[in-house]
């Protein structure tokens, strides 16, 4: 027994239909902690170099952290990882809900899915019993519909993660869904599950998670929750969650409008958290052990549809970025992509790209099979999303992701796609936010906001300046990804200002170890270098050229609070120089042999040298 851990890793081979449990060793627990660190390590160590993401040789990793499923507030995170079919590089994406606790109650800290089944299957886990079961009765169903069907068939006490038809059809931004509306959204992990014909994972467990000092943990938890409840922002964030940032993003000119052509939205008051609360609110919903309950479960009367959300990212990408009229349109689009099983960020990006091509006359009504892809046309967007999920008509092109679609369409359309490394931007424009732009440029999965959300620093340090921004992003990239190593949510820290040291205290109470912030940050740097090494190994010519911002950022913002703002190559170079310097990488942004050895990744350095990716 290792405190903080279920104790085993489940290896599932869908080709041979065999499963085996491997023990979590004290070394693995102590040296690599869990969550995304395990994923990075196993991905580098076990995936054959150059593996096709949708081949049987790719693997999907599902990992909890030592705090996942514990009493510690917001210990609800579980991380999915694979070689991304969307980007060709490292991807991990986390979800909340309750499944992380159930998995650990079944004695499991990680599942590794290997091989591929010839027919649809789902993985059934009931404590020590594991079966690969026929899923033909669920294949073809939506993500949420599949979860309801499996709960009906297996019992409410099973926790279930599913893919939708988009995952079955290998849509490269298909996502995994759990607990009605929690998604591991980014990078197309569900397409990899679809290629393996794995429709769902259902798990139930009964063994409590071993904790070194449960009395201490309870005391610490109660003290931190008491602190949180007394913070001024607590009731507001509990009420509105991420939607509370909508007005602010509009006021500072970072909300995406019509595929990032503008950054302020005239209909802001019809898509913000306040309007959402008035129009479609049903209930606040919380993930496991979460005193915040930031998620909002809603019902749109206009479209007769329930959905968990929309969150701010969906409001931005599927609302203002598509020119939608109100929160009701966003809710129905959100419900559609949730059940089809597609990332609402990349879905929003794909539809916005299509609408801009339509706006510019590059693609026409005929190209879209008769759909009028005008800004704000919710019916057009809904039909188009279905074409994508089913790969019918032009949907097959956009199912490859917006960047790949642009390369298929040609005609210099790549410049309209707002992405880095093939992963579409989250809902923060960066015409006048260099630190945030650098965060997108250097996030280890592509343009995602969660690794470093640096807009606040852009505003406090100056929106036109690049000075010190490399260090800002470096620092954020050390702390924030640790949340996904430990298996916890960042919101208590980010929104309610729970001290990071309180997380470290919780980790030590749970594990009985003596981790320090200094040690954890050094560990975080090791993990970041490892994911960078994975990109270096997998992508020919990887380096500085892959860390560039989208072409749109070089064009002047025509109006709004950031009118006239644009990025220059000089700024981009300054940002990357400062950032690479902080990591002690070379001028091309590649880890050096010396640095890799210093941080305990000598074997990775040797491997990259042997493959000719870096030089000794």
């Amino acid at each position, binding site marked *: 027994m290792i405190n903080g851990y279920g104790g085993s890793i489940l290896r599932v081979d869908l080709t041979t239909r065999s499963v085996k449990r491997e023990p979590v060793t004290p070394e693995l627990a102590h040296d690599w902690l869990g969550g995304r660190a395990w994923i990075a390590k196993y991905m580098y160590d076990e995936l054959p170099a150059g593996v096709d993401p949708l081949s049987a040789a790719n693997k999907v990793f599902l990992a909890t952290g030592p705090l996942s499923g514990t009493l510690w507030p917001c210990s609800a995170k579980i991380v999915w990882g694979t070689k991304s079919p969307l980007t060709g590089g490292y991807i991990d994406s986390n979800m909340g809900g309750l499944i992380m606790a159930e998995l650990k109650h079944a004695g499991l800290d990680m599942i590794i899915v290997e091989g591929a089944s010839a027919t649809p299957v789902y993985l059934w886990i009931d404590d020590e019993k594991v079966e690969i079961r026929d899923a033909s009765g669920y294949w073809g169903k939506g993500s949420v519909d599949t979860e309801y069907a499996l709960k009906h068939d297996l019992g409410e006490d099973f926790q279930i993660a599913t893919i939708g038809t988009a995952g079955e059809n290998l849509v490269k931004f298909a996502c995994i869904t759990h607990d009605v509306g929690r998604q591991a959204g980014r990078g197309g992990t569900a397409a990899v599950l679809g290629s393996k014909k794995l429709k769902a994972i259902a798990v139930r467990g009964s063994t409590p*998670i071993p904790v070194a000092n449960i009395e201490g943990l309870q005391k610490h938890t109660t003290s931190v929750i008491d602190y949180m409840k007394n913070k001024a922002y*607590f009731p507001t964030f509990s009420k509105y969650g991420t939607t509370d940032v909508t007005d602010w993003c509009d006021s500072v000119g970072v909300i995406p409008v019509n595929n990032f052509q503008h950054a302020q939205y005239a209909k802001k008051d019809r898509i913000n958290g306040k309007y959402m609360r008035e129009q479609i609110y049903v209930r606040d919903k919380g993930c496991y052990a979460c005193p915040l309950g930031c998620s909002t479960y809603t019902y749109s009367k206009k479209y007769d549809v329930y959905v968990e959300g929309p969150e701010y990212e969906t409001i931005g990408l599927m609302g203002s970025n598509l020119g939608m009229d109100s929160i009701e349109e966003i809710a129905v689009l959100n419900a559609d992509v949730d059940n089809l099983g597609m990332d609402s960020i990349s879905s929003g990006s794909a539809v916005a790209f299509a609408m801009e091509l339509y706006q510019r006359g590059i693609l026409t009504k005929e190209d879209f099979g008769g759909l009028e892809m005008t800004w704000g046309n919710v019916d057009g967007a809904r039909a188009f999303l279905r074409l994508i999920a089913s790969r019918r008509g032009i949907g097959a092109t956009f199912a490859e992701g917006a960047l790949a679609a642009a390369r298929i369409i040609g005609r210099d359309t790549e410049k309209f796609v707002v992405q880095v490394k093939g992963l579409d931007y989250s809902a923060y424009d960066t015409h006048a936010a260099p630190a945030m732009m650098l965060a997108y440029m250097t996030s280890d999965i592509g343009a995602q906001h969660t690794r470093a959300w640096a807009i606040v620093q852009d505003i406090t340090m100056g929106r036109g300046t690049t000075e010190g921004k490399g260090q800002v992003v470096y620092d954020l990239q050390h702390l924030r990804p640790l949340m996904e190593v430990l298996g916890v949510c960042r919101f208590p820290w980010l929104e309610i200002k729970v001290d990071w040291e309180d997380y470290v205290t919780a980790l030590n109470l749970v594990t009985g170890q003596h981790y320090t912030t200094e040690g954890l940050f050094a560990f975080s740097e090791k993990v970041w270098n490892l994911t960078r090494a994975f990109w270096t190994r997998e992508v020919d010519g990887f380096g500085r050229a892959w860390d560039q911002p989208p072409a749109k950022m070089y064009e002047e913002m025509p109006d709004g609070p950031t009118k006239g703002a644009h990025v220059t190559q000089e700024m981009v170079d300054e940002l990357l120089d400062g950032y690479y310097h902080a990591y002690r990488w070379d001028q091309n942004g590649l880890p050096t042999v010396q640095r890799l050895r210093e941080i305990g990744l000598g074997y990775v350095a040797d491997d990259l040298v042997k493959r000719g990716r870096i030089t000794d």
Partner: protein
Amino acid sequence: MKHIVVRSERCTGCRLCQLTCSAQNFRLNTHKAARIGIVPRFPEGYFEVHLCNQCGVCLPVCPVEAISVDANGAYVIDESTCIDCGACVDACPQQAIFRSPASPHPYMCNLCGACLANCAAQVLIWEEDR
């Protein structure tokens, strides 16, 4: 004496009450040993909260008179008398008498109140006796 009022319309389904209850009463990190039950109802979108409200229906149902009321007004099952027949579990109109591997006998809320401190949504609050 006081009892716990449940305002289930505020429940977010986070299970902190159950986690806290299990830690307080059994020294276990789980939501599954709790003396309180949460049942999600979706797609309608609400959570049923099952908690003993001291109605007393269980008391006469017990064939071996193992159930009594303690000084705080909580209903308690005497483990040395209980034969684990399950009559109280079946009879409870609140579905608030539980079984788990944490105990060889059923149990219900003992009014320890630990859960209230961690229920940030204030679903659970103290109320002086009716």
